[in-house]
């Protein structure tokens, strides 16, 4: 069977930003789905969002309410969301209360009532909220076989009438095995919410979806006045074509350092600048972004410890004008200090900014600040999400410079306390060193995945022009990277450095 012979399954939009991508393009048309979760997890809001996104007067949406939240109250609350379009009510969106039928009659009568309304309206979308109530009520007086038969007939009816169906219910995970409704359903969307320390973490999972490949795993989501917004684990970058690797080298804005890097940073690399507090990591990062702007590469700076205005002003003190490119939308300085955001939500904000201005360079200053800005419950996912974002962005040619603070030790030379060195192609290490009774600074290129680099250890200073490398490589000392070097006596005797 060729691809052309296969039936094409249309995909309906959910109206939930990010969810279509997680579903693999949208909701399969005419599918029979379950929206499950605990009370307060957002099931009804999700159902409404789908409803309003798809309902038209020609193919209306029917919302059957059953012994759950009273319909009047549901309308009272749901109309607060921006997606709730009052003009669609009674025309494209119709609410029908089936509580009495469920209470007083049997499953056949419920099916009869639904059939009557479906045949009358020819709906494109049908929601039954809460379907669990129907099942619970029925369980007392019907056999399991009768219940399964009812669910199957309901699915058959709604599919035959070309409706995409959503059964909303407060289920717990243990029910998946024994409940016939899960067997019959084509799709199962599970919503979770759990407190993690002082934050609430909302996640959703596409447990099952017939006919198309959804993104597996748990995805965070948020409920705002606009309804649900989902953040895919793949950050919306799944399947994105990777750019052919570039041979271009990007100047970091410090000519001597460019030479040490073998001509600059290979475009599309992730570079880590590690050093103790005050070693000039942020200044170096600012020089990198300013040099990019100068060469026509739009850039994004993500900061966590100072406001964008302060950041731009500090750059000005080094003769780097960030205000003009900001006004010209060639540079965006993102200040992320939300503290209760999920890691994926934060990554999405960065990705949106990158896409908005077509950024070629991205600075994350710093990784420690980034991690601290997240809600405690999300910090465990930090490295995994950071890895996904860096891989995806560098794959499309964005060059990323991240700074990381390391504890200065005079016995060790750690690259990073965050064990995120695996995320980077290149590493520059800055450190303090005691020389001639002064606390001076040295830098060294530790690693460059893309090729050869200088092995020199160079002294640098932070001047009014930013980071400036001074002099040639330090050849008169041994043990520079320990921070307590020993001056080499060319006559053969080493002399302990007095500090």
């Amino acid at each position: 069977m060729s691809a052309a012979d296969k039936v094409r399954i249309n995909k309906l939009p959910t109206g939930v930003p990010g969810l279509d991508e997680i579903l693999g393009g949208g909701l399969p048309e005419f599918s029979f789905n379950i929206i499950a979760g605990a009370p307060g997890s957002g099931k009804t809001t999700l159902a409404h969002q789908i409803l309003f996104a798809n309902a038209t007067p020609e193919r209306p949406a029917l919302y059957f309410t059953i012994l759950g939240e009273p319909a009047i109250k549901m309308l009272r609350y749901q109309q607060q969301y921006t997606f709730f379009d009052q003009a669609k009510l009674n025309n494209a969106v119709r609410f029908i209360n089936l509580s009495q039928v469920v209470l007083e009659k049997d499953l056949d009568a419920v099916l009869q009532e639904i059939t009557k309304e479906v045949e009358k309206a020819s709906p494109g979308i049908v929601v039954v909220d809460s379907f669990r109530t129907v099942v619970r009520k029925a369980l007392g007086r019907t056999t399991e076989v009768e219940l399964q038969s009812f669910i199957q007939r309901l699915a058959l009816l709604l599919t035959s009438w070309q409706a995409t169906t959503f059964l909303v219910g407060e289920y717990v995970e243990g029910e998946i095995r024994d409940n016939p409704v899960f067997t019959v359903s084509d799709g199962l969307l599970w919503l979770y919410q759990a407190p993690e320390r002082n934050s609430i973490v909302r996640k959703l999972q596409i447990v099952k979806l017939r006919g198309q490949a959804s993104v597996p795993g748990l995805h965070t989501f948020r409920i705002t006045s606009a309804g649900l917004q989902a953040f895919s684990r793949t950050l919306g970058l799944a399947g994105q074509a990777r750019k052919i690797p570039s041979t271009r080298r990007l100047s970091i804005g410090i000519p001597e350092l460019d030479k040490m890097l073998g001509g600059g940073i290979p475009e599309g690399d992730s570079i880590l600048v590690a050093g103790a507090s005050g070693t000039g990591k942020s200044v170096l990062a600012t020089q990198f972004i300013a040099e990019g702007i100068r060469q026509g590469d739009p850039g994004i700076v993500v900061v966590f410890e100072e406001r964008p205005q302060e950041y731009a002003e500090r750059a000005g003190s080094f003769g780097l004008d960030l205000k003009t490119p900001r006004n010209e939308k060639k540079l965006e300085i993102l200040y992320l200090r939300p503290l209760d955001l999920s890691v994926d939500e934060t990554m999405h904000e960065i990705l949106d900014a990158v896409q908005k201005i077509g950024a070629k360079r991205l600075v994350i200053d710093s990784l420690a600040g980034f991690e601290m800005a997240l809600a405690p419950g999300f910090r465990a996912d930090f490295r995994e999400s950071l890895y996904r974002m860096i891989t995806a962005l560098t794959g499309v040619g964005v060059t990323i410079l991240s700074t990381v603070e390391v504890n200065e030790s005079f016995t060790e030379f750690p690259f990073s306390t965050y064990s995120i060195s695996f995320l980077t192609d290149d590493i520059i290490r800055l450190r303090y060193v005691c020389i001639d009774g002064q606390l001076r600074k040295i830098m060294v290129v530790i690693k460059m995945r893309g090729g050869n680099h200088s092995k020199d250890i160079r002294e640098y200073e932070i001047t009014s022009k930013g980071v400036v490398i001074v002099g040639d490589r330090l050849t008169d000392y041994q043990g520079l990277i320990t921070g307590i070097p020993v001056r080499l006596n060319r006559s053969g005797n080493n002399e302990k450095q007095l500090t």
Partner: protein
Amino acid sequence: MSLPESRYLAQRLLTYEAVAGKNSETTESAAFRVCAKLRRPLITLAGVAGFRSLLSRALTLARAEAPGLSAVQIAADGSLQGLDEMEPQIGKDQAREGGAILIAQLIGLLLTFIGEGLTLSMVQTVWPEAAFDGRVFEKERKA
């Protein structure tokens, strides 16, 4: 006391149904007819129990303003009973006023719970030939 907006809308519905009633052979009061017409979409939306709860609340509130409504009852199916029997006991004007207050209270509850937009949308569905839109309240608000 019902809101001026709900009183105004109630009055317009009653006037509309009074005219419609004259042209038909039915003898029910305009208030009974308005209530019966609103009952249908509200039962579809909220169920019989939901509609009865709303109407009971409206009747209780209306009785405080029109004690003559004490004889009015709500049947199990949500229909009003005793509204038309009220007239011989308390007089035509008071019966009409009581009916108007009851409808105003019912609309007032809808305005409180689901807001102006959805209430008017429902009214529009029931009386599609009548021009009821957001402007019905403008005059009252300005006043």
